[in-house]
């Protein structure tokens, strides 16, 4: 414990240099701007900045990305409150009560609630990262191929089931992502799969160009197709968070922080699911249910706390299992790997300093977010006034640079374009994109562990089900699939009701 605190202290002190603080300030500000502008998402911001910061020192580069991630998730609430348009998908829930508050002339108070909820949510998540990451990493050290295989499958299924929308389409997107990950040289015989003599394709599909395509290019096209947005409220009252609001809704904050962090830990779900789940839980428990959707302070607080607590939560599985908890965390994980760190159970043994540094980075980013949240109201309003016709071509140019920057292959620009167009069409067809990206990330882990497990067991699938952790993961995965089939779900519910009904009868 004391050694951990001392390592955290030295990591924190290591970042207290003028150059580092300068990076924190511009990166957090950039993140807030990216989050605030409709059409730009946290995933795109982190993916783009990964490519643009890879010549920086690795500590500084990861710090910049953490700041962009934390800032972008918070920034989305600005446009949700002032425009009724979520700046990022994570802020969709904040429009429900944020915008009604702004229309009542309470835009400043809404932003204050958003700032305090978001700050506390991230802080709650950071405490969970610090407490649970070492424990989970230690547990993961005993995992073998069978368990890692099920973690991969569980990630795809749970992301498909809970990422929002249609679970069936989530599964299809997830398995499509897994198949895309098999394109290129395979690990056992260096055979070029699905490349058909195309040298560029033999190298495989890069995660970052695909991410930039799905979350950047597709967003540009969506923004240009949709209606233009207008700032409806330029008059802003005091933005200082009220301590009374925080104290009154302390239970909501605690509950939303816990839900947000837990959803962050689950593979591929992300901040939007965290916000909706926290909001729903707050509504169920609230004494003022009727105010939800009409400008409820509690509702906005719950959504903001939940989505911001999800950010550190999504980093926990990245550090312990090499499985991203959200789409921006997938980009962050790619960046961590590009900078020669190995996320997964061995990270706490080989490079434990990275864990303490990431905790310190999250704390610093959260503080910078609070400072900007209290001061940057007018400049953000001006940024929101930039018409999309002028912003989107610049974003597309940045996407092109970002896709090219790491491997310097024009092929990656074409990959970005392809994924952008496919991502746009799939979104229009209501396919969630998080499982697709998670499939792309988990493809290698899943294939290696499936084949290794089969080789070790001489082709027997029994160990995949009979080992304790494998068995539990398999059961949860199968249950999640059954739950997404309506007739099966009805039967499960009826069965549970019958079971409890019989239990209540007198003997």
């Amino acid at each position, binding site marked *: 414990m004391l050694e951990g605190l001392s390592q955290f202290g030295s990591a924190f002190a290591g970042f207290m240099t003028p150059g580092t603080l300068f990076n924190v300030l511009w990166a957090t500000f950039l993140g807030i701007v990216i989050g605030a502008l409709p059409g730009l998402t946290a995933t795109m911001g982190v993916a783009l900045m990964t*490519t*643009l*910061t890879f*010549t*920086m020192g690795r500590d500084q580069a990861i710090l910049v990305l953490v700041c962009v991630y934390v800032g972008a998730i918070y920034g989305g609430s600005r446009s949700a409150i002032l425009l009724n348009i979520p700046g990022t998908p994570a802020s*969709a829930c904040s429009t*429900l009560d944020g915008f009604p508050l702004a229309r009542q002339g309470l835009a400043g108070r809404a932003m204050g609630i958003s700032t305090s909820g978001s700050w506390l949510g991230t802080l709650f998540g950071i405490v969970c990262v610090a407490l649970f990451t070492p424990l989970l990493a230690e547990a993961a050290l005993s995992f073998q191929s069978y368990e890692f295989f099920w973690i991969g499958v569980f990630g795809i299924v749970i992301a498909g089931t809970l990422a929002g*929308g*249609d679970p*069936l389409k989530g*599964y*299809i997107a997830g*398995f*499509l992502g897994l*198949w895309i990950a*098999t394109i290129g040289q*395979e690990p*056992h*015989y260096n*055979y070029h*799969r*699905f490349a058909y003599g195309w040298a560029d394709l033999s190298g495989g599909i890069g995660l970052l160009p695909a991410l930039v395509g799905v979350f950047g*290019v597709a967003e*540009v*096209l969506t923004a*240009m*197709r*949709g*209606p233009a947005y207008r700032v409806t409220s330029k008059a802003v009252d005091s933005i200082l968070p009220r301590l009374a609001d925080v104290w009154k809704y302390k239970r909501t904050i605690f509950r939303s922080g816990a839900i947000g962090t837990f959803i962050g830990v689950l593979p591929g779900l992300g901040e*939007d699911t965290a916000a909706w789940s926290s909001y729903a839980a707050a509504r169920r428990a609230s004494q003022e249910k009727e105010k939800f959707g009409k400008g409820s302070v509690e509702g906005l607080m719950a959504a903001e706390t939940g989505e911001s607590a999800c950010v550190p939560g999504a980093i926990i599985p990245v550090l312990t299992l090499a499985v991203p908890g959200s789409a921006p965390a997938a980009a962050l994980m790619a960046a961590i790997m590009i900078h020669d760190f190995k996320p997964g159970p061995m990270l706490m043994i080989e490079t434990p300093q990275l864990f303490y540094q990431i905790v310190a980075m999250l704390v610093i980013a959260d503080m910078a977010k609070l400072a900007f949240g209290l001061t940057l109201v007018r400049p953000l309003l001006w940024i929101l006034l930039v*018409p999309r*016709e*002028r912003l989107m*071509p*610049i974003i*597309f*140019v*940045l996407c*092109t*640079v970002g896709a*090219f*920057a790491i491997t*310097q292959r*024009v092929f990656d*620009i*074409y990959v*970005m*374009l392809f994924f*952008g167009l496919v991502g746009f069409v799939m979104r229009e*067809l*209501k396919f969630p994109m998080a499982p697709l990206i998670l499939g792309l990330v988990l493809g290698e882990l899943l*294939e290696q562990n*499936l*084949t290794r497990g*089969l*080789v070790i067991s*001489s*082709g027997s699938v029994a160990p995949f089900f009979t080992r304790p952790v494998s068995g539990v993961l398999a059961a949860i995965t199968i249950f999640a699939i059954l739950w997404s089939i*309506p*007739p099966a779900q009805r039967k499960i519910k009826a069965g549970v009701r019958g079971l409890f009904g019989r239990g209540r009868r007198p003997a």
Partner: protein
Amino acid sequence: MSEPEAQSVLPHEAPLPPRVDLVTAAVFFAVGIAIVYASWRMPTFYEQLQQTYTAPGLVPALYGIVIVLLAIWLAARAIGRGALRRGDERTRAPREGYSNLRLALATALCLAFAVGMVGRLTFWLATAIFVFLFILLFEWRKDQPWRERAIRIASAALIGGGTGAAVVLVFTRLFLVRLP
């Protein structure tokens, strides 16, 4: 398998007409079959390790089979929801403010920049032309007075040139990133 209505988890998600889902299922069925066929044709390298668990086509074939099964599930669900029923073709109401013309123009401009200009022109020039054309075309109004139009053209040129110069300076000097 039939259900009265598609369920949506999030409030902002609206279900698609079942016929669209049926067509989507057909596409994914074809994709899945193609994956399985291509995987089947891959060598197994059995002679090297005397086992097939590491055969290159094994895992992609598994994914292909799952995609085919999921596509059949999607198709069956769409049919259950009335995709083949005549006179019950639920179509989505056009969304207010959405324009396919704007989408086509944006797609064409992005493709022209990424495929046509990048690599053929100096990057700053390609960027300047792309940004200039994008702003100009999207802000073009038929009934605009010439003075206002001239101002818009000038500002588009200024933003285009400024973006080209800024991108080159920031990325090559500050981030030390090579440009296409």
